[in-house]
Structures are given as structure tokens and as C-alpha cells.
């Protein structure tokens, strides 16, 4: 493995992704205000029902968390990572195909997995900027009562969640290519995953029969662990099940993603459909 070569690939994917994102002035609205407003709407939805007894009801379902705004902000933050990943990393090859740059990109001697890592890194950097701004603005507007007893563990959970998300992203890249239904799937998947992963509400609120499907989504574990460790004072050992879930997802989706990418490339070469859009 030529490390310098892989570094150059990642660097190029990162830089051109960033340049294209910030090329037009509309980025300001998207980066600074969009996620903030979206989260605010969810918080206000909760506030329309807010009363001491309703907060108690919420707390029973959320494992003792009473900070509703904080609950929503954190869930929304992870949800934004998910959405950016879906439409960024996951949609990367379809974006290249529609732009007409897929063939010339595949002609380069880059390792395609490394190329996607570069794309994922750019995605992550951009998501981090927007989500940090969202969390800051929402915390200032609504308050967030953090209760962190294990900051290192929290960081580990965050890192594992992000890795799991982008492993899924790489898997989706090939999945979208193989099914030739990127737009359809990406659009469709938003709602079910938002529901099943408990991004906006405690997972205990959904019918038990859906929990199996929730467990298939890596972000479910990330959100659950992150909330417990940030708002309920849980330590890493208390969320070991979530950590195990994340780790398993990382392994499974990484393997599926890398294999899927190689298979998708081979299928594209067989069918000759890299330029078809």
C-alpha cells in the first residue's frame, strides 16, 4: 500500500468536495440556519404538549431523561449526520454519474475504497461544522442540561457512531449503484430510519415488534448511548450493549461496503453503464 498515494486520493476527494459545497453564497443559509430551524421545530412540537405530567411521561420512556430539549438536540445532531451521510457519501457515485465525471474518475488508478474514505471525511467535516453550529444555537435558545460523568467514554461512543455511519455510507454507495435507484431509496429511507432509530423520541415509544428493525440500524445504538451518557450521567459500561451493537455494525457494514463496492464496479464494467443517467 502506497500511503502517499492514498493520502493524495483522500486529499483530492476532500478538497474538491469542500470547494464545491462552498462555491455559491447559499451555503450560509444551509450551514448556519437550516439544521437549527429544523431542530427548533421538533423542540417546539414537544413544547406544545409540555407540562410537568407530560415530562414525567417522557422521562419514564426515555430512561430518566427530563431534559426534553437536550434529548431532541442530541438526537437531531446524530440525525443530521445520518442525512448528510446518506446524501453525501451514500449518494456519491450517483452524483458523479449524473455529473458525467464517473468514468474519468474510475479511469484513475485510485483505490475506490480510499476515494470513498476521502468523500466520507469531507462529509464528516462539513456535517461537524453544521451540527456544531446547530447544537450551539439550540443550546443557547432552549438550554441543554448536560450530565457527563465519562467524557472519554462519550468521545469513544461518538467516534464509533460516526465510523458506523460512514461504514453504512460506503455500503449504501454500492447498494444504490447496484439497484440503480439511488434517488428513490435515499428519499424513501429517511422517514423509516428516523422513526425506527428514535432520533426524535424515546425508542421505548415505538411498538416492540419494530425494535428488531431498529437494531439493524447502527445509528439507533449511537443515539441511545450518546443521550444516556450526555444527559443521564451514564458511563461507558452502562451502555455496553450499544457499544457492542455499534462495533458489530461497523464490522458488518465495512465488510459489506468494501465487497459491495468491488462487486458494483465489476457489474458496471460488465454492463457498461457508467455513463448512463
Amino acid at each position, binding site marked *: 500500500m502506497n500511503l502517499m498515494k492514498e493520502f493524495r486520493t483522500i486529499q483530492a476527494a476532500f478538497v474538491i468536495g469542500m470547494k464545491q459545497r462552498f462555491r455559491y453564497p447559499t451555503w450560509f443559509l444551509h450551514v448556519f440556519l437550516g439544521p437549527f430551524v429544523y431542530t427548533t*421545530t421538533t423542540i417546539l412540537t414537544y413544547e406544545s404538549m409540555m407540562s410537568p405530567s407530560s415530562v414525567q411521561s417522557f422521562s419514564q420512556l426515555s430512561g430518566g431523561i427530563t431534559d426534553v430539549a437536550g434529548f431532541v438536540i442530541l438526537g437531531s445532531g446524530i440525525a443530521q449526520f445520518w442525512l448528510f451521510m446518506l446524501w453525501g457519501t451514500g449518494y456519491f457515485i450517483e452524483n458523479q454519474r449524473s455529473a458525467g465525471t464517473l468514468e474519468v474518475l474510475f479511469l484513475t488508478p485510485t483505490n475506490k475504497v480510499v476515494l470513498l474514505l476521502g468523500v466520507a471525511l469531507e462529509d464528516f467535516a462539513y456535517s461537524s461544522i453544521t451540527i456544531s453550529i446547530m447544537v450551539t444555537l439550540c443550546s443557547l435558545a432552549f438550554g441543554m442540561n448536560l450530565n457527563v460523568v465519562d467524557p472519554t467514554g462519550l468521545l469513544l461512543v461518538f467516534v464509533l457512531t460516526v465510523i458506523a455511519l460512514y461504514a453504512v455510507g460506503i455500503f449504501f454507495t454500492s447498494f444504490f449503484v447496484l439497484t440503480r435507484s439511488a434517488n428513490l431509496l435515499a428519499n424513501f429511507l429517511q422517514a423509516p430510519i*428516523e422513526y425506527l432509530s428514535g432520533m426524535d423520541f424515546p425508542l421505548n415509544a415505538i411498538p416492540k415488534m419494530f425494535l428488531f428493525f431498529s437494531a439493524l440500524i447502527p445509528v439507533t445504538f449511537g443515539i441511545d448511548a450518546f443521550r444516556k451518557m450526555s444527559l443521564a450521567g451514564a458511563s461507558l459500561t452502562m451502555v455496553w450493549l450499544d457499544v457492542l451493537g455499534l462495533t458489530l455494525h461497523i464490522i458488518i457494514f465495512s465488510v459489506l461496503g468494501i465487497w459491495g463496492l468491488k462487486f458494483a464496479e465489476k457489474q458496471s464494467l460488465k454492463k457498461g453503464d457508467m455513463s448512463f443517467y
Partner: protein
Amino acid sequence: MNFVKELKVFITVVKLSQIERIRWMTPVNFVCFSILSPVFWLAITTTIYSVMAGGPISPQTMINFFIVAFLADSFFRSILWGSAVHLYNEQVAGTLEILYVSPVNLYTWMIAKSFSGAIDALTSIAISLPLAYFAFGFTFGAINGLTAILSISLTLVSLYSIGFAFAGIGLIIKQPWAFSNTIQPYVFLLSCIYYPITILPSWLQNVSRALPTYYGYKLARDALLYGKGITDVSGDLLYLTLLTLICVFIGLLSFKYLDRLIRKHGFLSTF
């Protein structure tokens, strides 16, 4: 203006859009987008209300409150967000310049496209309504059809008009999806789809009351949940009418200006 000619163009564009839609609507797409997707979107919000049970407002009251707006939103969304991307989609397909060069009235074309979206919305509502009833216990309250028709019609006209401006903006910024995705949260926030206006700070309430969509959702609820007649909502209706006239003026003027800008800077073929 030759109305017969415009009508022919209108019917042709609606027909073509529907053909495209029907070809796209495979059984899988139908199940995913017409059944499952609305169920999940409804489920997300209704679950939020259910989680906050035990307070003075019952979750079912808020669920009904939200679902009426959700159904109305099917119409409004297709017009407002659709407008931003119709011309952009033509641009990406490479057919925008050909469209411009033809003697088609672009306003007629855009209205027809949005109208086709509204037909799709009707289909969507027809499916969502029974889903809302069976899955989430939604029921209408007392219904006043005249108020509903009048308020929704006025809102649609205002949104069609604003849609013209969005169409022009979409071509200039070359990222209409980003534009739609950026504006959408504000519309959701300020139009009070999920909560009553009293939740917002007073200064934001004033901003809400300047949006036609706020009145669209509010009057839909008044008509379909509370059975309010025209006289009961005359003030809101009058204000909506005024807003509609302003939107028509702004929309037509903006598109004219933006259209000129687009042709001046050669944005027709670059995307």
C-alpha cells in the same frame, strides 16, 4: 393572451407530467412512497405527541391538529417545492433552452407542472386519509366545505405565485434542492404545522401571520376540525386574500426580473 392556446399548452404539460409519473409509479414505488413513506412521517410526529401524554392537551387532539395540516401540506409542498425544481430539472435534462426558444408561455408551463403535482397530492391524500384513520385514530371534526375550498384555493394561488420566484432562484443558484431544503424548515417552523402559533415568541408570531401557508393550515383546521364558517374566519380570509394578491404581484415581477438575469448571464445551460 390566446386562452385556447394557453389551455392546450396547460393540458399537454399536465398530460406529459402524468405520463411520466405513471411510468415512474411502479408497484414498488407506489408502496414505498404512497403508503409506507406517509405512514412513517405521520408516525414520527404522532409518536412525539404520544410520548408527552398526561398533560392538559390530549395526544389525539394534537394528532388531529397535525394531520389536517399534513394533508394540506401535500398540496402546498408539491407547488412550492416543486416550482423550484421544475425548471432546474429541465436544465439538467438539457431541454430548458429548447423550452425557452419555443413559443410556450413559461408561466402557463410552470402552473401546469405545479397543477400536475397537485393531482399527485390528491392521490397522496386519498391514500393518507384512511391510513391516518386506521393507524392514528384521526377523525375530522365538524366540516365546513366552503371555508375549506376557499382557503385552500387562495393559499394555492399565493403559492403558485411564489413558486414563480422560486423557479427563477433555482436556476440562478444552481442548487434548487439546497434552496428548497433551506427554506422548508422555516416554513414548517413559522406556518405552525406541528403546534399552535401561541408556542412561538410574539415577534415570531407576527412573522408567521405574514405567511400564506400559516393561513392555509390554520383555515384548513378551522374548516375541517372546528367547522367554522366564512363569517367566523372572515378576518383571516381577508388577510389571506391580501397576502395572495401581494404574492401574485411579487411572483410575477420576480420571475420577470430573474428570467432576464438568467438570460443575461447565460444560466440557461449551466447547472
